[in-house]
């Protein structure tokens, strides 16, 4: 395999097939579009991260002394909007998903390559409008846009932000459409549903949510813009509207959106754990079907964000019990990943460290979700830092760890280069420590009663806030490091070879980086997924590079 790596190095691939800016901006190659997305979402990640850093610095002291109250409100609003809509939601699907879906099913490209490019342009259009919104004064509604504050009281760029997210939503819808059609129609001969990599099951479930959920947020935000601009009485109670109706509509999308963020990461973990355990994933069917179950049940739990909003007692009961049902498939996945390691042959490369981190943090995030689904406890901790800590454990500890793990796992395939393994492991460790230091204290803060979105706070909450801010700076280091060494590896990294991890899956049978049309001839699949008994792991994986 090592000799193959050297000989393929000179071959044409999707990166050197064409040169020039036009060849990138007009490309229909799913792999190039994935890279366009990778660059764009990385930009927005650091924008959102910058806002987060300012938030944590403000909260270092109880008094509101670093920025003005209005500025602070804009910071947490734009942190949420940028991170959720312009980073987390597109993160894995638009980068790794775009890159891997055709490779994994054994196809030359996605079903609709030009629509795929269109979806990136829609993302960019939405992103530019969001940047315009930020640079011309920002928006201060909270990422949740709650009415009637957003429609009748805020005097910031609400309409711009709403339209930016509206436009960006179409990018999600088109990506979802492309994945669903590709997975249904373009699987190589022999690639049956029961042989699909679990990453594709996750991506498929995510795409369903993209298709069914995103139109609802689009319409909801459009209604906000219309009420704000034309004084319609949809949500404003003084004009006969209902402000709580907005919350139902908003969460009907935004709760499933949490699964848009976490499902693809679960898919990544389901690829990494078998590879570095050298085993078929334990309970393939259970893991695959639990992705679908999450997507389905995820649509039926939205009002658990509204237990203190004034909904009826009995509605609250129904949404509480359904929230416990949606927790089950997640628990099943964690148990199956753990069981996959049993009697495996486990090595601790960077992606596997991220997978360990994911399982740990996601477990904490999931278990604290049980607190919030318990009606009697949610009343106390709703809208406090307990909620902040919980969803960051899921969305940063879970989704982002999965994203970074996946990025490291497939980086050799995407770029043809290895990153420095020692730096990779170090940064995984730093992210894990920094994350816990940042967000664990917030659970306690929340139960003590510190409300979220507070610019100033009573002094007794300071000690825990100092821990949190200290953790955030550690976390920042953990995010900047990969940025540096991954870029470094583009030029100086060791050539990766086709399959540096000895991983199963069609994508590893192509050269690294793949050619424009992925496969020289259409592959025919005659083996089950995760056939790790038939693939040796290269000796050097466990040896220090």
């Amino acid at each position, binding site marked *: 395999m090592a000799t193959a790596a050297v000989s393929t190095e000179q071959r044409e691939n999707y990166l050197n097939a064409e040169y020039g800016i036009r060849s990138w901006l007009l490309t229909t190659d799913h792999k190039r579009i994935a890279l366009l997305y990778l660059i764009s979402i990385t930009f927005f990640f650091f924008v959102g991260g910058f806002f987060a850093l300012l938030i944590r610095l403000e909260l270092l002291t109880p008094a509101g002394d670093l920025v003005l109250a209005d500025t602070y409100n804009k910071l947490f609003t734009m942190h949420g909007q940028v991170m959720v809509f312009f980073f987390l939601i597109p993160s894995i699907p638009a980068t790794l998903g775009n890159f891997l879906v055709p490779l994994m099913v054994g196809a030359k490209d996605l079903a609709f390559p030009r629509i795929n490019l269109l979806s990136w342009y829609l993302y960019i259009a939405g992103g530019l409008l969001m940047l315009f919104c930020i640079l011309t004064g920002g928006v201060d509604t909270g990422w949740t846009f709650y009415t009637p504050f957003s429609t009748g*009281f805020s005097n910031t760029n609400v309409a711009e932000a709403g339209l930016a997210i509206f436009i960006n939503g179409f990018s999600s819808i088109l990506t979802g459409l492309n994945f669903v059609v590709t997975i249904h129609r373009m699987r190589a001969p022999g690639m049956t549903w029961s042989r699909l990599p679990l990453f594709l099951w996750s991506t498929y479930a995510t795409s369903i949510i993209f298709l069914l959920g995103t139109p609802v947020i689009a319409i909801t935000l459009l209604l906000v813009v219309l009420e704000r601009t034309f004084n319609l009485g949809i949500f404003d109670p003084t004009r006969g509207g209902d402000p709580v109706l907005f919350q139902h509509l908003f969460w009907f999308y935004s709760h499933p959106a949490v699964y848009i963020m976490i499902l693809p990461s679960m898919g990544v973990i389901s690829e990494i754990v078998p590879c570095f355990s050298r*085993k078929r994933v334990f309970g393939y069917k259970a893991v695959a079907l639990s992705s679908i179950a999450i997507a389905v049940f995820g649509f039926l739990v939205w009002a658990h964000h509204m237990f203190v909003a004034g909904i009826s007692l009995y509605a609250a009961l129904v949404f509480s019990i359904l929230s*416990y049902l949606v927790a089950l498939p997640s628990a099943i996945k964690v148990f199956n990943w753990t069981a996959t390691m049993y009697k495996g042959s486990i090595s601790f490369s960077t992606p596997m460290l991220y997978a360990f981190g994911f399982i*740990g943090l996601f477990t904490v995030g999931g278990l604290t979700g049980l607190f919030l689904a318990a009606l009697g*406890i949610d009343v*106390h901790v709703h809208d406090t830092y307990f909620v902040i800590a919980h969803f960051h454990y899921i969305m940063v500890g879970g989704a982002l760890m999965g994203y970074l793990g996946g990025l490291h796992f497939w980086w050799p395939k995407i770029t043809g280069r290895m990153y420095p393994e020692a730096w990779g492991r170090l940064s995984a460790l730093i992210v894990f420590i920094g994350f816990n230091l940042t967000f664990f204290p917030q659970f306690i803060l929340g139960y*003590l009663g510190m409300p*979220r*979105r*507070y610019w100033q706070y009573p002094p007794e909450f300071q000690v825990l806030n100092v821990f949190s801010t200290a953790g955030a700076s550690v976390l920042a280091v953990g995010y900047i490091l990969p940025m540096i060494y991954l870029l470094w590896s583009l030029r100086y990294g060791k050539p990766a070879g086709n399959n540096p991890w000895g991983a199963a899956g069609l994508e590893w049978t192509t050269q690294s980086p793949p050619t424009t049309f992925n496969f020289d001839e259409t592959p025919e699949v005659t083996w089950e997924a995760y056939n790790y008994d038939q693939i040796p792991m290269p000796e050097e994986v466990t040896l220090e590079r």
Partner: protein
Amino acid sequence: MFENLPLWPARASTMAGNVDLLYIFLVLLTLFTCAAIFITLIVFAAKYRRRHGREAHQIEGSVLLEIAWTVVPLGIFMLIFAWGAVIYFQERVPPKDVAEIYVVGKQWMWKLQHVEGQREINELHVPADRDIKLIMTSQDVIHSFFVPEFRIKQDVVPGRYTTLWFRATHAGTYHLFCSQYCGTLHSGMVGQIVVMEPAQYQTWLTTGGGFGSLAANGASLFAQLGCQTCHRSDMQGRAPMLNGVYGNPVTLEDGRTVIADDNYIRESIVNPAAKVVSGFKPIMPVFQGLLNEEQLNELVAYVKSLNPPPPGSVNAPDMAAAETKP
């Protein structure tokens, strides 16, 4: 340093202990589950780490295990669900004999109206060992009334009443936070709940008043707005008689029956055409925007005061008859 780092706020209401008990149970469950999973991971990682001459042992899965780790968590989840639901019902359903206080949230302060006439801003005095019900609304955006030491919280929504009840157990001063983001000084929309011994509270009620009771203010507002020209007390008016209406069912034009609770009375003032009583014409002017929330509270308190003292259910049939009369 760490003696000042408590894990929960002081327990100052009858609800606090119930909530904390479930919380502590869940914390222990979380610790146990995390320990089980993390220890398993660490043991597997150590025991099955990659070594020369040892291959991974391929295992397909186990239906029995899948069933076990579906059913066992489901059972535990249902237990937590039921436990949480019981506490929620305690939190949401106020006891019968409960003292009422009106709350109006606005950007960025809390205005509180005691039935006896006292008014306060960002500070609420209440007696210990008495069931208190807050009848809350907002005059602008959504706020949320949160008292961590009581473990209670309820959004305060414009255009309607929401309620919250508690029974304070210990005299003292506690945080009042707005927990629903409401604009610039959201974090400044804070105050305190001053819980007093009942005797001291009585003294407090009688000092510094001078506003007149809420219902009395409502009565004069009622007269001032000319409401009594139609809402006469002799059943001859062009509008329903209000005596004894509160808390009882009324039949509407479209045949529905609703309970004339705080929200119904409030809505019938600001938007009278929404639910017209059967047999009457929608002739009442709209008061949306003409009355502020405090005035609405006074009018609602006045309508409530028109009920005969309990037991007041005896005249309910009469009222129903009066309302259906053309």
